[in-house]
């Protein structure tokens, strides 16, 4: 019974992994990874890791994959571009590399001479891997890694929010006049909203658009006046033009 379940779950896991790599649509890749994770959870159950299997299904196949699906739907899930840069030589080289890596890993694990590797493992009591045992270990022997992991999760959540937030819209007028370090370091045409609404790095607008009274128009008019009489001192700097 165990052998049958092992082969079914193992083949399912490997097939899911191949599906992740081979399928062109990222959405189907995510679904293949979900099936791979469920099969892997079955393998964990065969190894008497009940809690890890449950956490794998609930956390990985549930929460993390939902996050993936949301991001794929947000990005658009477009297929990969089939550019001419995808050389067959590189793909062949990476396949050869994968084969070599598999051989090396197999030699490293199976040839290690561990005495129990050809057996089913040590004799363990029935409560091995149960949530009670794992929880007791997490709160006694491994308390510090547990807390550090929770802190790492907090940092990652804050970092993701900072990375993916919508870039700030209009700033206050006195803040627009100041140059921050980001304004100096950031080049033009990076698509921020500050460029669109006329910050220190505002893009020049075409003069013929003429629909709205954007600050770019005033700046264009000031530049035109300065071109007309080059001797006159400039009357308004762009930041002052924004405040007007």
């Amino acid at each position: 019974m165990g052998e049958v379940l092992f082969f079914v779950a193992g083949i399912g896991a490997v097939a899911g992994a191949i599906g992740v790599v081979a399928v062109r649509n990222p959405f189907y890749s995510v679904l293949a990874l979900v099936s791979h994770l469920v099969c892997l959870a079955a393998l964990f159950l065969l190894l008497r890791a009940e809690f890890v299997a449950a956490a794998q299904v609930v956390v990985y196949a549930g929460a993390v994959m939902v996050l993936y699906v949301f991001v794929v739907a947000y990005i658009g899930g477009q297929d990969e571009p089939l550019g001419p840069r995808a050389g067959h030589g590189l793909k062949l080289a990476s396949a050869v590399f994968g084969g070599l890596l598999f051989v090396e890993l197999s030699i490293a694990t199976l040839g290690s001479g561990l005495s129990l590797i050809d057996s089913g493992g040590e004799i363990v009591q029935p409560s091995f891997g149960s949530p009670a045992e794992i929880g007791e270990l997490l709160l006694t022997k491994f308390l510090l890694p547990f807390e550090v992991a929770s802190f790492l999760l907090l940092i990652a959540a804050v970092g993701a929010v900072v990375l993916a937030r919508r870039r700030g819209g209009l700033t206050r007028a006195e803040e627009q006049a100041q140059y921050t370090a980001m304004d100096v370091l950031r080049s033009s045409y990076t698509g921020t909203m500050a460029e669109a609404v006329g910050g220190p790095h505002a893009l020049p607008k075409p003069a013929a658009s003429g629909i709205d009274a954007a600050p770019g128009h005033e700046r264009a008019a000031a530049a035109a006046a300065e071109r007309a009489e080059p001797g006159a001192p400039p009357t308004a700097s762009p930041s002052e033009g924004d405040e007007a």
Partner: protein
Amino acid sequence: MDIGWFLVVSALIFTIGAAGVLTRRSPLVVLLCLELMLNAANLALIAFARMHGNHDGQIFAIIVMVVAACEVTVGLGVIVAMHRRRLPIDVDEMQELQG
């Protein structure tokens, strides 16, 4: 089942993940392949925990899952930021860190 069979499956999944990281160009799929490699390592850890009959490998696997979740969160945040800035979603195009 012998522990060695689980290790062979683990090596196979790790190999497939590594080949995927090398061949695919969409950063989403590269992240998925990283997940594959981490899961292969998890399977090996749990197999060794079963072999030795103590729980330390399982705790290690749980911590690896936490780290993988963090990596996914930050990686997807970077991809969403790339998408917002109209940058190409292609790891071959992303060659510099300057935003």
